[in-house]
């Protein structure tokens, strides 16, 4: 077992709560400290995104290091878009050396979505191969090139992501099975707005027994405004925002929309908690971290173990 707090909580059988912070577009470490500070005592681990949507931000590893120093349990998000197998392994070793115990292996958004569309992408390996790479370094003590890792091995709790709403739908549970087989111990899903579809996906996941091989954390994102909901529905790849959710936001006075968004998030958590195989929630309050405590409290997930 790693030194990960998240792993400890999940193994204990408690319903886990994670959240995430996007690092700033600058070199000010105080920003990440401030964002994480809002979450203290409300979550078991904090993901730090890795240049999400292909926009340059302070590095995930450096941000995780800052949080580790403050006593948080950071989850290092690592995408395959920007690093080849040499850099990925190097960063894994470095992260482990400074005490980072969780890693989330991702393919990464295509660079065309960010502000450096002319960049050359890497994609030397994919997210499933990255999961296997971390496991190989940790369990076999072997680099991807085959050489033996003679010094300390990176002791990481290995995670991955999955989008139950991506197509083709019929392989989305199998894809998670592949990740589990590669060595993923937990998954954090894409934001769930279409709960019936998520429940259908979970049924497929249970049918092939994946929920017994890894911990499944359901992704939650509160709507801040109708505009944001509409944007996620229309413009964010792989997002499934049913029209009735937007209608519900429209049904309340303008000044109450954000409050309604929080209410929806809390109700969604309560419903997902009843789904067999869901081991926790991952709350992604995009640039709205200050609302996470309210959601966690509202969903009766306090105190954290």
């Amino acid at each position: 077992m790693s030194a990960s707090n998240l792993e400890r909580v999940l193994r204990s059988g408690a319903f886990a709560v994670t959240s995430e912070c996007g690092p700033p577009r600058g070199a000010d470490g105080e920003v990440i400290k401030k964002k994480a500070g809002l979450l203290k005592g409300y979550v078991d681990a904090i993901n730090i995104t890795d240049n999400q949507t292909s926009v340059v931000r302070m590095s995930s590893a450096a941000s995780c290091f800052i949080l580790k120093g403050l006593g948080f349990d950071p989850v290092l998000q690592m995408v395959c878009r920007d690093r080849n197998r040499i850099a990925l392994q190097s960063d894994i070793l470095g992260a482990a050396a400074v005490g980072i115990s969780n890693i989330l292996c991702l393919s990464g958004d295509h660079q065309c979505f960010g502000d450096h569309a002319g960049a050359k992408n890497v994609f030397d390996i994919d997210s499933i191969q990255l999961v296997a790479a971390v496991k190989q370094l940790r369990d076999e003590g072997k680099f991807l090139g085959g050489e033996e890792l003679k010094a300390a091995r990176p002791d990481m709790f290995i995670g991955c992501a999955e989008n139950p709403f991506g197509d083709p739908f019929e392989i989305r549970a199998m894809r998670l099975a592949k990740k589990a087989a590669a060595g993923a111990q937990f998954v954090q899903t894409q934001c769930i707005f279409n709960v019936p579809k998520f429940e259908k996906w979970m049924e497929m996941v249970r049918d092939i027994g994946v929920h017994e091989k890894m911990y499944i954390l359901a992704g939650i994102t509160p709507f801040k405004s109708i505009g944001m909901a509409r944007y996620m529905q229309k413009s964010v790849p792989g997002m499934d925002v049913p029209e009735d959710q937007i209608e519900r936001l429209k049904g309340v006075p303008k000044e109450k929309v954000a409050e309604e968004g929080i209410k929806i998030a809390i109700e969604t958590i309560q419903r997902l908690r009843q789904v067999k195989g869901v081991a926790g929630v991952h709350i992604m309050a995009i640039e709205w971290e200050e609302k996470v405590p309210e959601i966690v409290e509202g969903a009766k997930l306090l105190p954290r173990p």
Partner: protein
Amino acid sequence: MIVANRKPFEEIVELIRPYKKIVLLGCNECVTVCATGGAKEVEVLASELRMYREKEGQPIEIKEHVPERNCDPEYVEPLGAIIADAEAALSMACGCGIQFVGEHYIDKPVLPAVNTTFDGVTLEHGVWSERCLGCGNCILDKTLGICPVTRCAKSLFNGPCGGSHDGKCEVNAETPCAWQLIVDRYKERNMLDKYLEIQPLKNWSTAHHGGPRTRVREDLKL
């Protein structure tokens, strides 16, 4: 075939601005098939340039020539006289042809009139689509004839990313998701279980990442 696009006219005008006498080369192979640099396109560009320069008060003499190929000494060596007679060559051949002609006539600039884009196929009249990145280690047997290296924007080996939507790629709503195509084919052949196999790391050293490639067949050398 190698597919290319003609460069914007203004860019071509700038490339040849210093010259009064040039040869405009086309190619009778790929760029003819993709309607970029065959005899017809050479004729059109030559006329456009002549008219433009005439209007500018700086007339230019342009000889048109379309060899069978620009990537073979057999067809490039006979170009000596026509290139010697010009100040520069402007070529509508692919990047291989432009370079190869340049290698043979190092005292003359050989300028690109096209941007070479991809190795692909003709989908329908006027539509071409990329199919092969020449990675040097073909896995089309495993993916039932659809190349994820070329046709997935992230060259993913183990399935679609989270952005695959309604059969289309997150990068471009017009582009089919390679993994949707592969999964559909698995299903058609009743072998969806194959998807569960984890594809190992690719050895990219056989691709361009291993450095520029040369192929030698000793038995064919003269």
